[in-house]
């Protein structure tokens, strides 16, 4: 019987083992596809540069449409004999019409002018004429923009309506744009200055100009209202002179001095803010025609010193690019303004209050700028999101209508609006219709593109062949010159010769590469989604470029600091609580309920918790405020804007991490302690050991593996920190790190996310992947390091514990 059952089972057992592969196959396949392969490709991407993300790919069937859109044949073929027409047989006018179509479509894509909700708002709430209202309603109903696009009166009325709406967000973005232009001007002036020196306004020019004379005249004889007089007196007092006239007319007045700049800035609107005792009156500029030129001068000369560091400038550029969104909380806007101010990008201003006959700075010095900003925001800010959208919608519509591409097509007699799609999606069919209308349907085909591509490849290949021959001809001379230089031993000569030699060598390499892979027109268009392998360039960019290095190192530093500061109290409290919870002498009741409550935060969505804490700590100066600010009021402390202070923001993140995770750690430790053999404790008790001794001599050593596990898992999780800092403050204030401004709570993953998936139009996938790879390597090294460090000690500790146990057993 036994034999009977055994034999088939053994026989079958052999074949059964194969089922193992079947059973684990789904796991292995999915893991390789969805985890391992992406990990490897991330490594690959870390060595690549993505050339451009302008192009979106919409499938092979419309590949020629894709090339139509992204190839500018006029540019490519300018360098060829006979131009576009001669080389390709394409009528230049038709081709330009097609380009105009795309330009108009791009505008339409960019702004998505028909936002039904926003337009509906105009219909429902604005005081526009009935005719216009009806037309807007038609646009909403039909989705066809031409009802209003073709009617200049309607557009004029809508533009008028939108220009009467003041939105601080838009205002600030606009004024930042102006500031940026000024900075650009400054850069241009500085450049032209170094060339000719004729264009730049010099201090001498200002002081000797007629306008300056009339400015002095205004100061001496002009009539000013009370507020202006007070302001002028205040500034004169600050400059240590009797009157502003004295200051500006003095022999030794220097246009470059800080005080000169300060006074001018405060005389110029809207930086002079003044609060009288009765109410609030803002003091406008002392009206002098001279100011316009002065501003130009200051822009030219001050910007070059105010924005010395390229990183500050690029950070500032982010504001203008919209990477840092000014359209969030009012409170955040406020913080952004202060950040800009910290960066020296906003002209300093003080809040002045009247005391007797004089203006003095408000006693609340620290908040002076904030107070002024606050006042400005409060008096100008209108909280109406939909209305803002409506205005943006109208602006976008205007942009589209004024687009040069569209105008061109309208002038040429095309009903362009009916071929454009306004919902943000490019409609291939509409485009193809248009293309055949202008007669390019049979001209711009895939076959044609391939033909052109081949022509171009041949051309470049031939050109490179010529270059190669020239370079190879130069090589022997360069080599000989280098050898001769080495023979003389003159270091400078060697260096120069070496440079020349390597130049020739790189010319040869370049030419050889081009011959091997000449680039055609299609490659140029395709390269928008192509990853160019650049070896270790991304890593040398990270480690070689001081700015980039500081931002990356800063993100690692921020992450590590926020993890460690949260982790230390977390592990300490968990150790304490687990010791108490397992202490049999205490005989605590209701522990399971307490455990359950303490673990609760760990199961709640981290995003929710972060948003909650954001609300809890948010800052405002008025009566209505958040809980923590109310608590500060209650204890009589000044209110604190936590999210402007980098360390306060970080500490809140640490606290949330601590609060969410100590319960988890505690439960793990309790489990560890309870798994330690009871007899060890009994024998220790018999030996008269107290709780503390038992804990340090038995529990701690035996708990070490669990502590190791906690440390490693917490570290891996901590380095991947994202949800909490991201949701707590999506626009963190800036803090200097090693001379570069970094976002105070930006973790590594937040940085990766910003680079690869951020709002910027240039996606830096290569750098993002390189940072991911660094994170991966760092985590692996740290895990292994901790593991081995702790394991060696473990082995010793375990041996000791065993000895102790044996000893204890022997005593008994």
């Amino acid at each position, binding site marked *: 019987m036994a034999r009977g059952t055994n034999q088939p089972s053994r026989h079958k057992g052999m074949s059964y083992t194969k089922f*193992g592969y079947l059973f684990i196959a789904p796991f292995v396949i*999915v893991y390789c596809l969805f985890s391992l392969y*992406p990990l490897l490709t991330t490594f690959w*991407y870390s060595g690549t540069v993505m050339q451009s993300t302008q192009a979106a790919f919409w499938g092979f069937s419309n590949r020629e449409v894709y090339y139509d859109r992204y190839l500018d044949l006029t540019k490519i073929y300018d360098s060829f004999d006979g131009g576009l027409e001669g080389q390709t047989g394409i009528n230049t006018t038709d081709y330009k019409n097609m380009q105009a179509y795309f330009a108009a479509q791009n505008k339409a894509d960019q702004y998505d002018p028909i936002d039904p909700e926003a337009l509906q708002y105009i219909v429902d709430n604005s005081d526009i004429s009935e005719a216009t209202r009806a037309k807007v309603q038609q646009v909403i109903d039909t989705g066809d923009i031409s009802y209003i696009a073709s009617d200049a009166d309607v557009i004029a009325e809508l533009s008028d309506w939108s220009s009467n709406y003041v939105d601080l967000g838009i205002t600030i973005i606009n004024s930042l744009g102006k500031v940026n232009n000024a900075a650009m001007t400054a850069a241009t002036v500085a450049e032209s200055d170094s060339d000719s020196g004729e264009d730049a306004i010099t201090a001498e020019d200002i002081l000797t100009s007629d306008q300056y004379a009339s400015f002095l005249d205004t100061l001496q004889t002009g009539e000013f209202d009370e507020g202006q007089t007070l302001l002028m007196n205040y500034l004169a007092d600050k400059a240590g002179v009797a009157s502003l006239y004295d200051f500006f007319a003095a022999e030794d007045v220097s246009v470059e001095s800080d005080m000169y700049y300060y006074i001018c800035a405060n005389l110029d609107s809207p930086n002079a803010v003044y609060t009288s005792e009765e109410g609030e009156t803002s003091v406008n500029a002392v009206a002098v025609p001279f100011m316009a030129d002065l501003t130009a001068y200051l822009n030219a000369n001050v910007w070059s010193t105010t924005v010395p560091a390229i990183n500050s400038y690029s950070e500032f550029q982010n504001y203008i690019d919209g990477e840092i969104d000014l359209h969030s909380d009012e409170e955040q806007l406020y913080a952004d303004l202060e950040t800009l101010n910290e960066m020296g990008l906003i002209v300093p201003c003080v809040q002045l209050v009247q005391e007797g006959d004089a203006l003095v700075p408000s006693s609340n010095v620290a908040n002076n700028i904030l107070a002024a900003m606050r006042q400005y925001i409060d008096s100008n800010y209108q909280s109406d999101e939909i209305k803002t959208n409506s205005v943006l919608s109208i602006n976008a519509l205007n942009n589209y209508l004024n687009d040069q591409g569209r105008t061109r097509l309208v002038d040429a007699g095309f009903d362009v609006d009916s071929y454009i799609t306004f919902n943000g999606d490019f409609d291939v069919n509409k485009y193809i219709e248009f293309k055949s209308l202008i007669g390019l349907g049979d001209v711009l085909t895939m076959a044609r593109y391939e033909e052109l591509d081949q022509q171009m490849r041949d051309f470049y290949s031939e050109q490179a062949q010529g270059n190669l021959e020239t370079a190879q001809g130069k090589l022997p001379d360069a080599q000989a010159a280098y050898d001769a230089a080495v023979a003389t031993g003159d270091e400078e000569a060697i260096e120069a010769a070496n440079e020349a030699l390597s130049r020739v060598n790189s010319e040869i390499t370049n030419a050889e590469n081009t011959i091997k892979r000449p680039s055609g027109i299609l490659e140029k268009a395709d390269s928008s989604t192509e990853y160019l392998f650049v070896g270790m360039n991304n890593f040398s960019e990270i480690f070689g470029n001081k700015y980039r290095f500081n931002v990356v190192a800063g993100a690692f530093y921020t992450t590590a600091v926020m993890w460690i500061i949260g982790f230390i109290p977390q592990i300490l409290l968990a150790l304490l609580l687990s010791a108490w919870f397992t202490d049999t002498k205490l005989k605590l009741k209701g522990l399971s309920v*307490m455990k359950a409550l303490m673990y609760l935060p760990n199961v709640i969505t981290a995003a929710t918790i972060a948003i909650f804490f954001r609300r809890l700590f948010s800052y405002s100066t008025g009566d209505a405020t958040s809980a923590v600010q109310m608590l500060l009021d209650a204890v009589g402390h000044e209110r604190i804007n936590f999210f402007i202070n980098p360390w306060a923001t970080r500490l809140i993140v640490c606290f949330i991490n601590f609060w969410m995770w100590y319960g988890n750690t505690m439960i793990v430790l309790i489990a560890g302690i309870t798994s330690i053999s009871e007899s060890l404790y009994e024998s220790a008790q018999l030996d008269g050991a107290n709780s503390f001794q038992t804990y340090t001599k038995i529990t701690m050593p035996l708990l070490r593996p669990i502590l190791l596990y906690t440390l490693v898992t917490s570290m891996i999780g901590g380095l991947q920190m994202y949800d909490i800092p991201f949701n707590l403050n999506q626009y963190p204030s800036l803090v200097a790190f090693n001379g570069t401004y970094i976002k105070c709570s930006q973790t590594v993953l937040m940085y990766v996310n910003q680079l690869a998936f951020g709002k910027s139009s240039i996606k830096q996938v290569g750098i993002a992947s390189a940072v991911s790879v660094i994170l991966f390597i760092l985590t692996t090294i740290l895990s292994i390091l901790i593991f081995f460090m702790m394991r060696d000690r473990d082995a010793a500790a375990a041996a000791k514990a065993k000895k102790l146990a044996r000893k204890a057993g022997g005593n008994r």
Partner: protein
Amino acid sequence: MSSNDVKLRSKSGSIAAYSALVYIVVIFFAILAIIPFWYMFMNATWDSYSIQSGIKLWPNFAHLGEQVKANWAYLSNRSTFSFALGFKNSILITVSSTALTVYFSALTAYGISVYDFKGRKLIFTIIVGVMMVPTAVNITGFYRLMGSMGLLGTRWPLILPAIAAPNTVFFIKQYLDTSLSKEIIEAARIDGANEFYTFNRVCLPIMVPALATQGIFSFLGSWNNFFAPSILLTKQELKTLPLMVSMLYGDRYTDYGAIYIGLSASVFPIIIAYAFLQRYIIQGVSAGGVKE
């Protein structure tokens, strides 16, 4: 004798004082753990002005129903937050990914535990090893892969990878090693059952306790997931609840009552589930720590 008595009494006295101290600390932290949620729920019943002018630790008894309704209506009017939609999306993703995780992890763990095939030790070692790999580092590669597979803008990138969950495989395998007797499988084979029938009908029911625990953790992990969805789900109609909650931030036209009711709504289902399942969850956490 009497001196001994005094000593004992004083000792028990000091223990009483000690446990009183312990109680105070423990209760403090227990309250600290729940007070934010309490505060969230209470604020959800007040109007924006009251919330900002005083700390509300009690419900708005006078206008409880109408204020909650008003806050909810205000919240529902926002274009960025729809509880029903977010809940539906979260449930769809979470339930399907949990089901996949549990079933396929059981399958894999069973395969490793039951069949003595070549390389199984190596495979298991690799699984333990990759548990330690930080999961978020491959995001750029993953995103591009999803793009080339045409899965961006769908829920699949968050569901399909759930089939391979090394942690879950590890724990179920540990469970199987101790709780599954080979005799049952032998018996099923003798009865003529094929291997998949044996797994699905005979062994899977035995694994239920382990599957339930792992299912809970997988569910929580997927439900609370923020990083990957925030990158992969850009369309409003696909956004999960955490993503919608995250949008409560970016709004300067703030109605605090609406925000708090939104936060509460996202927390409430978890707290209810936790109330019923906390025993299993805590057991699961304990088991995780000890077995490693």
